[in-house]
């Protein structure tokens, strides 16, 4: 044990001393090569944009399937493959296999990694056994397994170089999110908001796996890595015990604030960005206070983890609107000035545009007109409630109270958007956003905490907004004005990450299993193909042997596979009603596969 501690100190000292940015430089260079796709979102800015332009709005209708690959795993396939030179790395849900395919040798399997994990972790995963992908850096592939083991594999051979345990699945902590390599560190969050886990983001040394820093979402200042004077919230220092003051007693110890979304990084500012999830439990009465810093956007120094700024979007959550969705970094003109922006489409139905250098709030608008729990964010800088959403009493589950059913709240707990990442095209300066169009009834009640057992505390039922039957939209969004530019209806929630390309085409998948291509300017559908199963994966593009390819994982599941599999109910239909809306099970079935498209030669 002493040896381990010593090595940890040494590891972090070495990291600070050398400031080794080798892996980082390599990654920045590789991410600028559009032939590769070396990080989960394609680049550090999480734009999911590619400069490849062989496939265009004019020729995409001729797209064909070039090759396919079965993962051999059922259940929900989120995320997407990485492409590094001639190698493609494909991951799966539990048991978390990784395949390395050689694209220059007809996609032969070069190596396969399959960890041995205790299957008891399966039911601890709240919403299917998903995994959102691997990261590459320093010649290694990093995987966060379901049982929270973070493992580094030799990218050439698949050999385990090191592994470290990031949490305790016995207490409900699990691994579902994709790591991000920044400089000489690999960063990773953790899941378990429905089990009362005190969640965190942790940076490990890429050479040794030794922990360098860990930042909790709630707790004392030294655990959440904030400086009461220098860390700011909407421009003001957050002060001492900013988190502890907003929880009753020691509830923060089982406070959630999980970090299962995506990480972004700005090399010029040396800051990492991510959001934290819901406070535990779902019963707001049981945890009075703002529950900071759940539901928060964090900007942290990549070397130390120290927070530069924070912004809590949904103080004292009453609806399970996790703030984990991706932070997309863009440099754009706003009101005549060049700004470094951060755009975030939150589960709560509001899209936020902030200045990512200092956390200044610039725009906060609904990106689905049906969002009704709030009338909007107070944008008056001199107001005591500046930056807070104005809650509509009728839809406040806190005000309606325990054991009472709050009806007709939009969006539902799965949010106007969940983890499925949006894309940003610098060509159109538009964001392409996969969305859910679902409302809910929500009834909170008291629950008691048992370590490792679900800690939920609310009953909910979900359905499309009154008078409508489609449960999703795919929209184009202007982050400067906070307006929808175009919106395509989808029968089901769009649970697939989008891809924008220099060819003027935007791609996304649907829960029925279609890969769709639409015109980036107008949203007009240009191509669709039905893959073997519903798509909850993210669309990727790469070039190999002079051809541009589009790749997507299908394999229905995830949270979408829970609520939609049997069809949602019509709450007004009364007794005996059979699913008033389309059941996904009539359209698709389980099965993981990768489908890769290209233009005919």
């Amino acid at each position, binding site marked *: 044990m002493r040896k381990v501690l010593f090595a940890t100190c040494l590891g972090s000292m070495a990291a600070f001393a050398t400031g080794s940015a080798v892996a980082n430089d390599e990654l920045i260079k590789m991410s600028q090569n559009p032939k590769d796709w070396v990080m989960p979102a394609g680049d550090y800015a999480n734009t999911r944009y590619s400069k490849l332009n062989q496939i265009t709005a004019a020729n995409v209708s001729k797209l064909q399937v070039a090759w396919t690959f079965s993962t051999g795993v*059922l*259940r*929900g396939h989120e995320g997407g493959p990485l492409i590094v030179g001639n190698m493609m790395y494909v991951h799966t849900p*539990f*048991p978390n296999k990784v395949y390395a395919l050689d694209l220059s040798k007809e996609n032969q399997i070069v190596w396969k990694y399959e960890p041995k994990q205790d*299957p*008891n972790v*399966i*039911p*601890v995963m*709240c*919403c*299917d*056994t998903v995994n959102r992908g691997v990261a590459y850096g320093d010649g290694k592939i990093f995987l966060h397994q379901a049982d929270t083991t973070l493992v580094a594999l030799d990218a050439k051979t698949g050999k385990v170089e090191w592994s470290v345990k990031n949490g305790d699945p016995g207490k409900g902590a699990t691994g579902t999110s994709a790591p991000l390599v920044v400089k000489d560190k690999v960063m990773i969050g953790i899941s378990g908001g*429905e089990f009362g886990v005190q969640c965190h983001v942790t940076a490990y040394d890429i050479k040794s796996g030794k922990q360098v820093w860990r930042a909790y979402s709630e707790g004392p200042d030294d655990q959440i890595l904030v400086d009461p004077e220098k860390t700011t919230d909407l421009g003001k220092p957050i002060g001492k015990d900013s988190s502890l003051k907003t929880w*009753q*007693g*020691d*509830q923060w110890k*089982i406070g959630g604030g999980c970090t299962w979304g995506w990480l972004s990084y700005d090399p010029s500012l040396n800051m990492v960005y991510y959001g934290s999830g819901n406070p535990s439990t*779902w019963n707001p009465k049981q945890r009075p206070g703002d529950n900071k810093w759940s539901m928060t956007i964090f900007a942290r120094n990549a070397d130390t983890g120290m927070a530069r700024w924070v912004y809590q979007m949904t103080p004292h959550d009453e609806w399970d609107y996790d703030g984990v969705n991706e932070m997309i970094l863009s440099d754009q003109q706003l009101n005549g000035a060049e700004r470094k922006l951060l755009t975030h489409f939150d589960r709560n139905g509001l899209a936020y545009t902030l200045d990512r250098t200092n956390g200044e709030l610039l725009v906060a608008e609904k990106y689905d007109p049906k969002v009704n729990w709030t009338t909007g964010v107070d944008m008056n800088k001199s107001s005591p409630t500046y930056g807070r959403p104005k809650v509509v009493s009728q839809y406040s589950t806190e005000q309606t109270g*325990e*054991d009472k059913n709050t009806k007709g709240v939009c969006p539902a707990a799965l949010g106007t958007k969940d983890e499925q990442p949006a894309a940003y095209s610098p060509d159109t300066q538009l964001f392409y956003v996969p969305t859910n169009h679902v409302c809910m*009834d929500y*009834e909170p*009640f*008291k*629950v*008691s*905490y*048992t370590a490792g*057992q*679900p*800690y*939920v*505390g*609310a*009953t*909910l*039922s979900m359905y499309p907004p009154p008078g409508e039957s489609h449960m999703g939209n795919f929209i184009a969004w202007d982050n400067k004005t906070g307006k929808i530019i175009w919106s395509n209806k989808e029968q089901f929630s769009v649970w697939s990450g989008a891809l924008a390309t220099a060819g003027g085409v935007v791609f996304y998948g649907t829960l029925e299993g279609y890969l769709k291509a639409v015109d980036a300017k107008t949203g007009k559908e240009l191509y669709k193909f039905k893959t073997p199963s519903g798509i909850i994966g993210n669309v990727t593009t790469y070039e190999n042997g002079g051809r541009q390819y589009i790749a997507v994982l299908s394999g*229905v*599941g995830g949270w979408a*596979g*829970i*609520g939609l*599999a*049997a*069809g*949602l*109910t*019509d*709450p007004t*239909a*009364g*007794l*005996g*009603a*059979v*699913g008033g809306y389309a059941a996904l099970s009539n359209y698709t079935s*389980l099965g993981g596969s990768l489908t890769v498209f290209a233009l005919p030669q």
Partner: protein
Amino acid sequence: MFRRVESMRRNTCHRIPRDKLLRTIWFVGAAMILVVSGGMTSAENASDPTAVKSEDGKYFDKDGNPTFKVAADGTVDWYTYSGYRRYHSECHVCHGPDGMGSTYAPALADSLKTMSYGDFVSVVASGRKNVSSSQENVMPALGDNPNVACYMDDLYIYLRARANDAVGRARPAKKEDKTDAYTQAENSCMSRK
């Protein structure tokens, strides 16, 4: 851990203290596993769910197993209503809304057509693994979770009603009142740590 643990109003359903209840559940569970492996599962399966007697708002069938009661005007017994709520907090994240199943967990509205009360209690309390090369289905052991264990009969009665099409997919609109006996039992089950 929580401020009002002692005064929790709405918790539990059984008149036995929780530790005793859990022990009972485990014992029943162990006994029923033997029965299952003996191939006698169907004995109880087709049993008539009609309520023949009631005690403090809880209904029982002719074999003495808990069951639902739905009046002509759609009023459901308290247990069915309570089971609806507990199901949609604890169970639906895997088993889907209204017991309809998900892409990876079975539809309990179907399972309860052939699953006996004993089997149900056993599987919920002790869990079950169904892991093979083609699937990884694992039901956790929830016997230590008071949010489930204290509501075992509520869940069973609700799902039995679903399996028999006695209640539909929506929240039951009308319900019988919660009895004082239920409230007392709930408090004693849930407030024990």
